[in-house]
């Protein structure tokens, strides 16, 4: 009889989850299961609701990325009512969205996944958190992290009413416009965001790329899976978060499919397992072959590295330069290195900041024509958007009064659920030998899924380690470190 190792709950992961690793009689890994023990059933209880309430109901899927669900839902309503938002409204939505992508990526890099690299994968658990990051980068830099996150979140509060569960999205536009005073503030924040993104990239250069041991871990075989990749692209096949076509490339980087969000059902199916409440999506036209990678398996990946793999480049200059540099160092496209998701996240952080600045500087956002009132009869609408954690689909069918009859959601992280299971298993197999398990090794197993920034079924998000960070930075350095050590 073999042994079972349980990591429960997974820390520094946004949501509930546990990993069960089974060892065989020799103490080697037989299999590893990532289980999601939660389900809330939004698809069911959305039935019967007013369509226009969906942008206010679906953000409750996730309090960390409510802006994603809000915008995706508003886009699904545009499609449902056949109404195009005026140019200013589209830009305002994308401005809010760029601010959101920036602050969310910042959260992940500095608080969740980043500590693994910045502090070091084999460092003691007590140091592998934001405190360890502070020690490495300095308090002043860390307080910058807090400040820029708050400023970018303030943009969402101002335009969306609230940053946790914004409410401004309507079919055909937004409920609130931008004032000239707001715009000045947004421009200032966006400039700071660009500078901050440069700083993050430099930090990654110095601490991670400058350290051969870390680079070896990134490019090493235990964190590698050759899969398909999916992401939204604009008309030039550049990465876009808010809009565009869904592009899928195969494990060799060739375009496998390019489709409108509205056609997602022609391309994606979901598989069900008895041992998890999460479902496992795959490319319908390749098929479900189980938890395996390669050209013949329908398993695909989404989120930062997948988006960059699926695109031909970035639409802004600084992000494009970083994009080129990343692939040069990784040895070309597509990059299959799971840990490079962290790197790609920083390239995207740069793009989000640059795009935020472009939109804030655009005078059209001041235009007061921010809504087109729908006139069509609703029947069916599909919205697609790039969430920080991958491609998100909202699909609604209604009666003629706009009452939801059916709702179907493929939530960002869910797309990655088969690959996350595979990555955990592969890392466990590569690291745990002959029954030897220590804390550092288990952390390296956890690193396999933290790279995805997973937010399981968008079940129950959380913010590991962030609160103590704020304390530390602001005022009482020594004391607060003590509190955290005491608690951690």
């Amino acid at each position, binding site marked *: 009889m073999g042994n079972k190792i349980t990591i429960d709950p997974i820390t520094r992961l946004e*949501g509930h989850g546990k990993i069960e690793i*089974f060892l065989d009689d020799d103490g080697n890994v037989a*299999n590893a*299961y990532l289980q999601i023990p*939660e*389900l*809330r059933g939004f*698809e*069911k*209880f*959305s*039935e*019967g*609701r*007013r*369509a*226009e*309430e969906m942008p206010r109901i679906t953000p*409750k899927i*996730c*309090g*960390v990325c*409510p802006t994603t669900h809000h915008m995706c839902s508003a886009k699904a309503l545009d499609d449902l*009512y056949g109404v195009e938002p005026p140019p200013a409204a589209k830009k305002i939505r994308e401005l809010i969205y760029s601010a959101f992508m920036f602050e969310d990526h910042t959260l992940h890099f500095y608080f969740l996944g980043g500590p693994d690299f910045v502090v070091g994968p084999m460092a003691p*658990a007590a140091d592998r958190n934001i405190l360890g990051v502070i020690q490495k980068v300095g308090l002043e830099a860390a307080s910058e992290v807090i400040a820029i996150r*708050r400023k970018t*979140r303030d943009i969402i509060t101002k335009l969306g*009413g609230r940053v946790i*569960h*914004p409410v*401004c999205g*309507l079919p055909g536009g937004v*409920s609130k416009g931008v004032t000239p005073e707001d715009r000045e503030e947004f421009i200032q924040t966006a400039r700071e965001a660009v500078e901050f993104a440069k700083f993050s990239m430099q930090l990654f250069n110095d601490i991670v790329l400058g350290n051969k041991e870390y680079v070896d871990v990134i490019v090493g075989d235990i964190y590698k899976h050759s899969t398909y990749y999916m992401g939204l692209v604009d008309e030039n096949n550049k990465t876009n978060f808010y809009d565009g076509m869904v592009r899928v490339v195969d494990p060799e980087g060739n375009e496998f499919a390019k489709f409108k969000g509205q056609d997602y*059902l022609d391309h*994606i199916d*979901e598989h*069900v397992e*008895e*041992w*998890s*409440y999460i*479902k496992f999506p795959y490319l319908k036209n390749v098929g479900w072959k189980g938890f395996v990678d390669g050209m013949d398996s329908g398993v695909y990946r989404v989120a930062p590295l997948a988006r960059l793999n699926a695109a031909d480049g970035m639409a802004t200059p600084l992000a494009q330069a970083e994009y080129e540099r990343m692939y040069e160092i990784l040895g070309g496209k597509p990059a299959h290195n799971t840990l490079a998701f962290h790197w790609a996240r920083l390239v995207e952080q740069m793009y989000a900041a640059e795009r935020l600045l472009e939109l804030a500087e655009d005078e059209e956002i001041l235009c007061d024509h921010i809504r087109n*009132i*729908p006139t069509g009869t609703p029947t069916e609408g599909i919205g697609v958007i790039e969430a920080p954690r991958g491609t998100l689909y909202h699909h609604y069918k209604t009666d003629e009064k*706009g*009452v939801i009859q059916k709702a179907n959601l493929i939530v960002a992280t869910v797309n990655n659920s088969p690959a996350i299971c595979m990555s955990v298993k592969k890392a466990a197999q590569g690291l745990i030998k002959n029954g030897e398990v220590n804390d550092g090794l288990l952390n390296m197993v956890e690193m396999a899924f933290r790279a995805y920034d997973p937010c399981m079924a*968008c079940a*129950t998000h*959380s*913010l*590991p380690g*962030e*609160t*103590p960070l704020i*304390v530390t930075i*602001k005022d*009482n350095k020594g*004391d*607060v470190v003590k*509190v955290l050590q005491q608690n951690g």
Partner: protein
Amino acid sequence: MSKPKVAFYWCASCGGCEEAVVDLAEDILKVVEAVEIVLWPVALDFKRKDVEAMADGEIAVSFINGAVRTEEQLEMVELLRRKSQMVVAFGSCAHIGGIPGLANFSNRKGVFERVYHTSESTSNPSGVVPKTRVTVPEGELTLPEFFDTVNTLDQVIDVDYYLPGCAPPADLIMDAVTAILEGNLPPKGTVLASKKSLCDECDRNDSKPEKLQISELKRVHLTEVDPEKCFLAQGIICLGMVTRGGCGQRCVNANMPCRGCFGPTDEVKDFGLKAMSSIASIFNIEGEKDMSEEETQKLIDSIVDPAGLFYMYNLPSSILRRRKMED
């Protein structure tokens, strides 16, 4: 003197309440300096066994967010209740059920049927559904039981105070924490927010006519909205009349009507009933006394999904609690 021990826990929720705590920014310094955090699974590496090892009543206060809908959540909140002198229901879901409480319009079977069988993107020819106990080739795996009904926190354990909102705003969180630390607390069962309704606090209140009267109901997405004027006066359903104030008019600030995340004021027994009667009372249609039954029905039909609208945040805590199911 030792610092009071504080626990944070989350059940069926979205993580927004955790974000709300994080958004306290530098204010949280005051909190962390004054207390010892003994459980916060999302932030700190404490396990259930650490809580089990504590003496009953050892934790000064537990803040619990999220509704209760799985076995695991129920066990955890019962444990925290035993170990805590005080329990605060934090946020709409723990307080009144919240948006996940809308699942009480269905049940476990309905949710499973939709999610694992009929969903357009699901391919499940052999009808697999997740099970609480599964044997895989290497051993056994377990999942917590998923209940039919979403419960508010006070439906499963005794609750001392309520912090309303989806999510609770920073100032109310800080007020509550300060009151607890100073021992300056109102009677047990108090909702720690305004006593007034949102309407009474609303910036648009001045635009509300002396006698509010409407003759038709409009839907916000099909209507040009005047950003200065009372929503009800524009014929758009806003639930601010019934909803407790203190939220800072967050939705109204974005030019959108209230949906009641703060729950009812103290005087209101059932949020949805009160909201419906309030709307009915401001209807004034010429010749309404002579309206035929058919015309009346048409008027009623103009309120789409009344149950989902008036009970959007509070179904589990309402007199309806849930839809009656066949099985």
